[in-house]
């Protein structure tokens, strides 16, 4: 459908419907703006369709499968447990992903956000061209929010295709790999590797750095890596992937480690070496929007780009590529457009989680940042082996670690490794944002028996009056 050269006037256009874009669109609409959201693929972006959500679904299946097939110390024997992988995939796609993405579509409609399908390309600072299969539509906007997210980086010598897959491919395997090779031991590689290891795959991770799970310190990652190795996983660090060859049934990767060339063969190869911002192909060269050397759009802390009425959020701007960061930034951009008071990034802590066998979560300062910045801080750590709930769940692994300011005792950072770390970290972020002290935490009654008690215990430890240690 050719709408013609006459541009339609829209107050606010949002490009991309991931956790950054759809949240920004809804918030801007609620703040009184007329909003159009443009999406070339599926509503919900990477996170809902091919990222966080479907991967967490598979990780959950991995946990349950492992529980059902491993001996338990408490004597539960589920003999002959099997997994119907096709059903797993259907469930993940139809019950999990579809429920959420159609829910987001509903939300957008409910908040009167118009959805325009197609690929957005900027014509200039005021107009965007939406390319559709059978035509294009020109939209002239007063404000725009760019939230086009990111895509997997391809290693030129190891192009995607066949048995060489990106994360999207790895989530959609039609069978559980027997031998899975993963290039890249970051969070995505480690999460996918852990999930398939639990599902019975023999997983090898080839990592260029001297450690995996960058962003979490070795004290945190140790229980995860120990478990991974105990379940047949192999990690090769300081290794450079060179090239890969494949047949109908297998794929062989050549890499260099310990100064020698080595090779490994598996039935699938996942390349998870990072994600590139989707800023090329957006027509930014037709605008005055500035990008940095990595192709990330430069913005200020109201998310405003070098063109004042165009904002940028999520994976296409600096900072960790996280869904909750994208959403938070989306709300700021929407507020800025609506001249709302919340229009500035004033956060103190950005939590980050890895859904590995034992979950890793961090927020605010870390022991490393304390050292690097010479902060006068106190570190207190309470292990889950001292927590009744963790023991009763047979998951007494990991710890809660608090980092508090020495003079005021205010919490400035925290890490959790172990059961439900992804949920526990929220309490700690809340404490940091609100300037709570370790006293405030220890004076808060935590229900018993819960994993959260470990936070109270760690706080008491910081106050010098521990009960359970």
């Amino acid at each position, binding site marked *: 459908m050719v709408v013609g050269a006459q541009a339609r006037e829209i107050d606010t256009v949002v490009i991309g419907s991931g956790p950054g874009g759809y949240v920004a669109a809804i918030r801007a609409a609620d703040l009184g703006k007329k909003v159009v959201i443009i999406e070339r693929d599926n509503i919900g972006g990477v996170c809902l369709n091919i990222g966080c959500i479907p991967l967490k679904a598979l990780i959950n299946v991995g946990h349950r499968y492992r529980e059902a097939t491993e001996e338990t110390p408490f004597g539960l024997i589920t003999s002959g447990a099997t997994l119907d992988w096709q059903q797993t995939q259907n469930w993940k796609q139809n019950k999990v992903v579809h429920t959420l993405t159609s829910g987001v579509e509903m939300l957008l409609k409910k908040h009167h956000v118009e959805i325009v399908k197609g690929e957005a390309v900027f014509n200039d600072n005021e107009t965007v061209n939406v390319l559709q299969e059978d035509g294009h539509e020109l939209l002239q906007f007063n404000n725009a929010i760019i939230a086009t997210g990111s895509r997997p980086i391809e290693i030129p010598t190891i192009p995607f295709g066949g048995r060489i897959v990106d994360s999207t491919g790895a989530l959609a395997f039609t069978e559980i790999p027997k031998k899975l090779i993963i290039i890249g031991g970051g969070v995505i590689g480690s999460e996918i590797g852990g999930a398939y290891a639990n599902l019975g795959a023999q997983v090898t991770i080839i990592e260029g750095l001297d450690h995996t799970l960058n962003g979490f310190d070795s004290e945190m990652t140790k229980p995860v890596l120990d478990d991974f190795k105990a379940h047949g996983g192999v990690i090769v660090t300081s290794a450079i992937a060179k090239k890969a060859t494949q047949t109908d049934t297998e794929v062989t990767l050549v890499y260099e480690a310990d100064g020698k060339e080595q090779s490994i063969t598996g039935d699938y190869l996942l390349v998870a070496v990072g994600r590139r911002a989707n800023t090329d192909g957006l027509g930014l060269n037709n605008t005055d929007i500035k990008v940095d050397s990595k192709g990330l759009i430069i913005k200020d802390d109201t998310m405003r780009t070098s063109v004042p009425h165009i904002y940028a959020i999520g994976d296409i701007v600096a900072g960790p590529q996280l869904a909750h960061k994208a959403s938070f930034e989306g709300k700021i951009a929407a507020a800025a457009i609506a*001249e709302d008071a919340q229009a500035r990034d*004033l956060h103190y802590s950005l939590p980050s989680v890895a859904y590995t066998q034992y979950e890793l979560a961090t927020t605010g300062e870390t022991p490393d940042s304390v050292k690097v*910045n010479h*902060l006068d801080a106190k570190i207190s750590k309470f292990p889950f082996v001292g927590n009744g709930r963790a023991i009763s769940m047979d998951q007494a692994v990991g710890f809660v670690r608090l980092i508090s300011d020495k003079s005021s005792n*205010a919490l400035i950072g925290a890490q959790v490794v172990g059961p439900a770390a992804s949920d526990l970290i929220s309490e700690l972020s809340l404490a940091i944002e609100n*300037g709570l002290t370790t006293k*405030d935490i220890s004076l808060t009654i935590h229900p018993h028996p819960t994993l959260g008690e470990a936070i109270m215990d760690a706080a008491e430890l910081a106050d010098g009056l521990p009960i359970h240690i």
Partner: protein
Amino acid sequence: MTEIFKMPDIGEGMAEGDITSWLVKVGDTITADDPVAEVQNDKLIQEILSPYTGQVTKLFVDAGTTVEVGDPLIEFDGDSSGENNLDNSQVSQSSISSNVVETENSTPQNTIINENNAVQVANGRVLAMPSVRHLAYEKNIDLTKVPATGRHGHVTLADVENFQELDSSASTQPKMSTTSQHEPSVAAYEKNESAPVLREGRQPMTPVRKAIAKAMDTQVAIPTVTNFDSVDVRKLVDHRNAFKEIARDDKGLRLTYLAYAVKALAAVAKKFPELNASVDMKAQEIVYHDDVNMGIAVDSPAGLFVPVIKNADRKSIFTIAQEITDLAESVRDGSITSNQMQGGTITISNLGSARGTWFTPIINGKEVAILGLGSILKEPIVNDDGELAVGRNMKLSLTYDHRLIDGMLGQSALNYLKQLLSDPAYMLMEV
């Protein structure tokens, strides 16, 4: 040789003053030019200096007493040297700092108001909840500068709100009755997480409170009318947004709506001279003023002050913004002089920064009109195209002396003010 030091004329035609505290006691030996007492005069606390060198043998009055110029204050036994120094230089301006007020009758829990207790933790952050940080940002306040009264040095919402009142020269008539060293503001009562300290019984008024109460007392007899109105200031909001960064970056000043309002009201005062006048009932005359000297009601922990921007009609908005900041700062640090508070011909009082809407301002001094500025609220309006839109409505309350100004004139003046505030471009053409 015995000398009697009498209450000097401490300037500004003042006939009497309160001895708020003695700085000497019987038996002290002092030299000429030593401060001997603090005297409260029309909201200013001044130190009076000794004209004599010698030993104090008697204090004629107790602290807290009102004395008239010429009343005996101190009996000296000394050499009477320095007697000729008795001139105005012996009255030194001293700050209205909290410790001055404290000396009289403050209780310990009230003493931290002027101290910056905000805790900055190791990584440079201030202990304040996200909503508090946002409020501070919204009000353009540097959180590290806000005195913290919360637990463990937390900056509370009330702290930021109160700080804003000082900082933006914002003030309100209603708040006068609640903000003082002894009575934390209403906001502090409402928002402070810790339970308010209840004080049954009687408390002496602070000197500043007395001065305000006295000034207000004399206004009760004036027959006033207050017209309430509201104006859509979307263009003004845009204008300020466009210029506030320039103001900050180029000139290092805070461009507030108050500065625009001062300019606009000054133009109104020019066009409607009745608003820039005084009534002399004795002579049955109207006194018109040539200059437009705009009083700005400024709140401080000690009470309400009304410094004056002289010739506001002839100053640029940037200059006015700068003067507002400077005057508010002087009020806050106590360096304000009575000279800076005199000669006002019309006054503006701002409740907007405290989120107030309409109120009934009370005329100041011998003036005949006062404008109360309320918040700018997002409200539904019907725009020029007859459609429902989100407006930015600024609330206005104009109180005037009905002896001189009738309702029609009052509203005409208010209409002109609205016109100026609704479009900065128009303001540019007119003022």
